[in-house]
Each structure stands twice: as structure tokens, then as C-alpha cells.
């Protein structure tokens, strides 16, 4: 059992939880994730570690309520416990002084981008941060990303805050403005269409781009292969070989199809949960 020590509502559908997990906090590195299960009948879901505090033995999880389990998780309160928490899983981000790097976070992807951004800056990189969301309400951690980056750009799809447009628009301008040879690497984490758009763009310029995949998982330790994805023509497991991969090598079509395979079941589970939990459905 892992106790929830703090809970914050970052947006109507994005929640933050600080969870007691000393063994994970002691070892985890940017880019790694955990698998959790809320209760006896629960499913195992992966969530990226958005932050950690080794001294206090805590990790921070940020999640968007997209399905039954994340919805249920979002209803837990400070003082409640999460039944099962395993980690840190996955291969940590490769952090070194590359020179100038761009870190792009889209939507809830800002959370996993944050610790890597901070680590890259600490390693001596000039870090250009770009974060974006659909609207102002969904944007979070502007302050933390500003601190972790050398410079920060913000977009909203509808223009309700900062610049109207997509993170990829800003990414294009920066690569063109600074020159593609002066950007050593791009890190892009967010919804699959956003990562795909970023990769298409950087591929044109030949700028290396790392993305972090959020495929379906069951065990998260390399045992089942549910999370497999084709990278550079080879089958890789997101849970142990990833979650980060060279975005130009990832088969996004396959990734999207595999991610959608259980859509009907996910919807049915959500509807059933909404009917039983008296939470009145979404929000």
C-alpha cells in the first residue's frame, strides 16, 4: 500500500499526486515509470514519474482522467492509499551535455517532460522548452518548466492563453530561426498525433528526436509483450527497451492501431464505473 500524501487538481481532468514510495524514490531517474493498481479487481496501468524527492521518499504522479482507472484514481484523496505500486520501470532517459536541446511537452505530456528537461539543464545543456495544451484551463506547470528550461515558449490550440497554435509551430520556427545544425536534439512527449507531427517536422530538418511512448501494458516488466512497437523495423518492448525511442524510427500507424484495440472495452468500463460511482460521469 502506498499512501497519497498530497493531491492537487491541475486542471479539471489532470490531477497530481505525491505518493509515499521510498524504495522507488531512492532509485528512479528521469524517464522512468511505475505501474499501479488501485484495488483488488483493478487493472495495472503505467504512469510516468513526473517528479521525485529522494529525501522524503516520495514520487509525484500526474495523470489525465481518460479511462476508468485514471478516473477512479482521480477520486482518491490525500490520506488514501494505492494498493499496488511497482517501479521504477523502463530505461531512464539518456542525459548528457548535448549542447542546445528542445524539450516539447503537449497536454499531460508536460509532466513526463519536466524531470528530463531539468536533468538536461543540470547537465549543462541550453534547454529550449515548449509546452502547449488545447486551452488555458488544461495548461499546468508553466512555472516549473520555466525554472527547468533556459527559455520557455507556450501555445494553446484555441489561443485562450499565450500564443495560439500548436507546439509544432513553435518547434518549426525555432529550428528555422536558430538553424537545424545548432539543435542537437529534440525531446517530444505528449499525445501520439502531437509526437507524430513533431517527428515529421524534425525528420525534414534531420534533427534527432526522442519520444516517450505510452502504449498499453499489462505487467510492465518485459513479460507479456502487450506494449510491443516496431522501431526501425524491429519489434521492441516499450516497458523494458523504452519508453523512449528515436521518433523517426517509430511505426506510428501500428502504435495508433494497437493503442485503439481495446477502445470498446475501455468505454464500457468507463460507462459502468460512472453509473456505479455516483460521480455523474465525466467531470
Amino acid at each position, binding site marked *: 500500500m502506498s499512501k497519497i500524501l498530497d493531491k492537487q487538481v491541475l486542471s479539471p481532468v489532470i490531477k497530481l499526486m505525491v505518493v509515499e514510495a521510498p524504495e522507488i524514490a531512492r532509485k528512479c531517474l528521469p524517464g522512468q515509470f511505475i505501474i499501479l493498481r488501485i484495488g483488488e479487481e483493478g487493472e495495472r496501468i503505467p504512469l510516468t514519474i513526473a517528479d521525485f524527492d529522494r529525501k522524503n521518499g516520495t514520487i509525484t504522479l500526474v495523470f489525465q482522467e481518460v479511462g476508468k482507472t485514471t478516473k477512479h484514481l482521480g477520486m482518491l484523496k490525500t490520506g488514501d492509499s494505492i494498493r*499496488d505500486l*511497482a517501479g521504477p520501470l523502463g530505461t531512464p532517459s539518456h542525459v548528457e551535455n548535448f549542447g542546445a536541446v528542445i524539450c516539447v511537452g503537449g497536454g499531460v505530456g508536460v509532466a513526463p517532460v519536466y524531470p528530463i528537461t531539468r536533468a538536461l539543464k543540470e547537465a549543462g545543456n541550453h534547454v529550449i522548452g515548449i509546452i502547449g495544451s488545447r486551452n488555458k484551463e488544461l495548461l499546468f506547470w508553466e512555472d516549473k518548466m520555466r525554472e527547468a528550461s533556459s527559455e520557455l515558449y507556450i501555445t494553446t490550440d484555441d489561443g485562450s492563453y499565450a500564443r495560439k497554435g500548436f507546439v509544432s509551430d513553435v518547434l518549426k520556427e525555432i529550428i528555422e530561426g536558430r538553424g537545424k545544425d545548432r539543435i542537437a536534439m529534440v525531446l517530444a512527449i505528449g499525445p501520439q498525433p502531437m509526437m507524430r507531427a513533431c517527428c515529421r517536422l524534425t525528420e525534414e530538418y534531420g534533427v534527432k528526436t526522442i519520444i516517450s511512448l505510452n502504449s498499453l501494458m499489462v505487467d510492465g516488466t518485459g513479460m*507479456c509483450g502487450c506494449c510491443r512497437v516496431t522501431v526501425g523495423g524491429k519489434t521492441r518492448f516499450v516497458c523494458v527497451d523504452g519508453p523512449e525511442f528515436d521518433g523517426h524510427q517509430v511505426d506510428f500507424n501500428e502504435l495508433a492501431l494497437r493503442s485503439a484495440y481495446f477502445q470498446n472495452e475501455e468505454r464500457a468500463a468507463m460507462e459502468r464505473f460512472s453509473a456505479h460511482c455516483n460521480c455523474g460521469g465525466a467531470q
Partner: protein
Amino acid sequence: MDSEQKAGKQKKEIIPKKHPMPSQDAVARIKNFSEVATGYTKETAIAEAKRCIQCKKPFCREGCPVDVDIPGFIKLVSEGDFAGAIRVIKEKNALPAICGRVCPQENQCEQVCTMGKKNEPVAIGRLERFCADWELAGEVTPPKVEQPTGFKVAVVGSGPGGLTCAADLAKLGYQVTIFEALHVPGGVLMYGIPEFRLPKKVVQTEIENLKKIGVEIKVNSVVGKFATIDELLDGGGFDAIYIGTGAGLPYFMNIPGENSCGVYSANEFLTRVNLMKAYLFPEWDTPVKIGKKVAVLGGGNVAMDSARTALRLGAEESWIVYRRSEKELPARHEEVEHAIEEGVKFAFLTSPVKIIADEKGIATSMECLRYELGEPDQSGRRSPVPIPGSEFIMDADTVVVAIGQGPNPLVPRTTKGLEVTKKGNIVADLQTGATSKQGVYAGGDVVTGAATVILAMGAGRIAAKSIHEYLANKK
């Protein structure tokens, strides 16, 4: 032969066949996940036990990887002393309710049973299960535990090997902690072997009994991630370690279309159903999707388990697609029989070369090749040779790949100084379980490649003995 003379002297009427195992009817059972074989009654157990002729030289015992005193316990069963019988079994086997159900007895104790030379062997497995179930139905008396030695041992993985090693060491007075990566202990007994063959309640009861003799189990603890083997030895305060992490890496065919939706590794398919109870979706959260026609690739126990599971999930047809012939099927005989009874179909000498999917990426069919058998290969089985131009299309909207598993790499990759083979198996002395690293022992599938529950238990027992000797010298 002494034993035959003795049997003759008693003028005992020989019952040529084993007493049949009471089972759920095949038509009824493919609609549920309850256990297929329901177990002997007291009367049947005593009658079956009386078939044993109590050979002076019991070959059965030599055939048992953990050296259970088989004639000894069977004699007590024949006398109706079930408490005595289970005590004898438990001297050597910490998990009899499990072994009685899943051991391949036909290749072990029962294969060499003297009765079996002219008739059917004594149903040793069924009797073992009877004794274990008899005990579990009442109060279990914990075995005697020696004085604490003061040494701490870590066991990595709570599958059959880890549990056996832990049980033996705990009885010898060691403080044992088992680290399990998943959220429940039991390893393959929980995620792999289906409920209808090994009820999960049986597994958990056996594990509860281990806890009663002081074994501590830490779930959600992925060794290699939250702590390495070196950290457990240096900072963790453990004096020795047993690695029994099993064969947790699924092999795929490496054919085009294999990443289509509806293609599962057997590990994924069975984990969803057994560990995550997908057959109870939506009461339980984890779903599994099953098509109308399921193709299971492979011919081992895992393949049989997958094909039979698919029927219970509502598949209209469930096929075993195997590239050799019926004779080479590596599965336990009883599993193949059960599969046939339940309506599983077999496509022998067949293997896919490509999986075809629709526009949503969901598998619809497989392009297959037919095979013929050539010369025997390294495994001694005749090797399958593809017949050129024999391509044909087989419909399948769910494909389960059950062609074997490799060792999970998490521990080998993160342990300095631990010798591994090219395939990633840990190199360990099969006589002692010792690895290239001092104080670190290993056994079971992570060393040998995918095998059976009882062989893993045998390896766990051997390592426990070696760890005991190693730590006794350290005093």
C-alpha cells in the same frame, strides 16, 4: 523380481487400470473456469493406493525430481492415515497440492512405476493431490522450524522454485524474504497456469502456509529495478541470494503482421485471463478480446492452456497450429486429451509465415505453409521441413503465440559478475545451483530455459541445500 513375488504372495487381485479421475463433463466445463478434475474421494484414494505393490526398490522415487517417499505415503493412504501420508510428502515437497495437479507424472514417477510395466501405473499424482487437498480442507499443521541461524536470504521470484527454496531455508532456521515483481506471489502458478487446471486459491493457500513458517513475501518488488542483486547483498543485509526469475520473456515468430491487434503472446493472453481475471471483465478491469476463430501457435502445455482458455472465453473454434506431428507434441498427455475432449482442433505440420490484418490492424487470417518431417534435430525430434509451394490461407481473428519463452533479462542485465549464456540464461551448476558470483545461486527456467514446475522446485531444493552449506561455513 522381488516385488512381483511379493505381490504374488499376497494373491492380491490386480486392478489393471488407474481409478479414473472424476472430472467435470467436457460440454459443461468449457463454459466455466472451474477446475476440470475434481479429485478422488477417500474411498477411491484408498482403493487406488492399494494398487501399489510396495516394491523393495521403488523406481518411482528415483523418478521424482524432489525425491518424495512415494511408496511410504501411498502405504499410509491405503491404511486411511491421510495425516501421516501428507506429512511424508511434505518432508520433501513443500507444494503438494500444486504438484499433484501439474507435474508431468507420466514422464517421471509414473513412467517408471513397476505396476506400469504390464498395466497402468499407480496414479501417484492423483494420490498426492488427494492428500494435499485433504489437508487443506482442515487444519494445516506447520512443519517444524529449526532454531534461527541469524542469516538472511533473499529469494528473487516467487514461482515454484523460489517458493521451494524459501520453504526449505525457512525450515532450516533462515530468515527468508521473497521479492516478487507482480502484485501477487506465485509466479507462473498465478499468471500462467489456468484456473481450470490449478485453482488460484490452492496456490494462495500453499503460500499462506509458507508465511506461517516465517517466510516474508514482498510483492511489487522488481529486483534489478528498485534494487540490484549487489545492493541486496551489500546494503540490504542479505547473506545469500537465490534467483528463480523464470522464463518471463515471450518469444515471437518474427513474421510479418505479428504486431497486428488480436495477436497475443501466450504470456499476455494467459496473464490477462489468469492473473488479471479478464474472464470476469467488466467486474474486473482488465479486458481480453477473443475472436471467433483462435489459432494457437505451438504444441506445449502453454499452447494447450491457451487453446482451452480461448474456448472458455467463447471462441467458436480454437486451433492448435503445430509444425510437427501429433507424436511430437511436447504437452503433457493429459492436457492434450483434455483439449481434444473439449473440442480443440489441431492443424499439424502447419506453421504461419505471415499474419494478415484488416484496415483497423486487426488480424483476420494467416498465410501458412505445410511441413513434412525430416531428420531428427538436436532435441531428438524429427525436424519440420517446409513444403515449397504449399502456401494456404487459414482464417484466424485471434492468434496466440505459444512457441516458448526466454529468461527475463532484468536481473542478468543488472548484476555485475553474473555469467550468462548467449541466450541470456544464468550459468549455474546444476548440482549445486551456484552461479559465477559468490553467495548467489540460481535455478529453474532462468537457468535451464522453459521447463516444468517440478524441475524448478527440484532446482530450488538443491540451491537451498547449497546455501545452507555455504552459510554454515560462513559462521
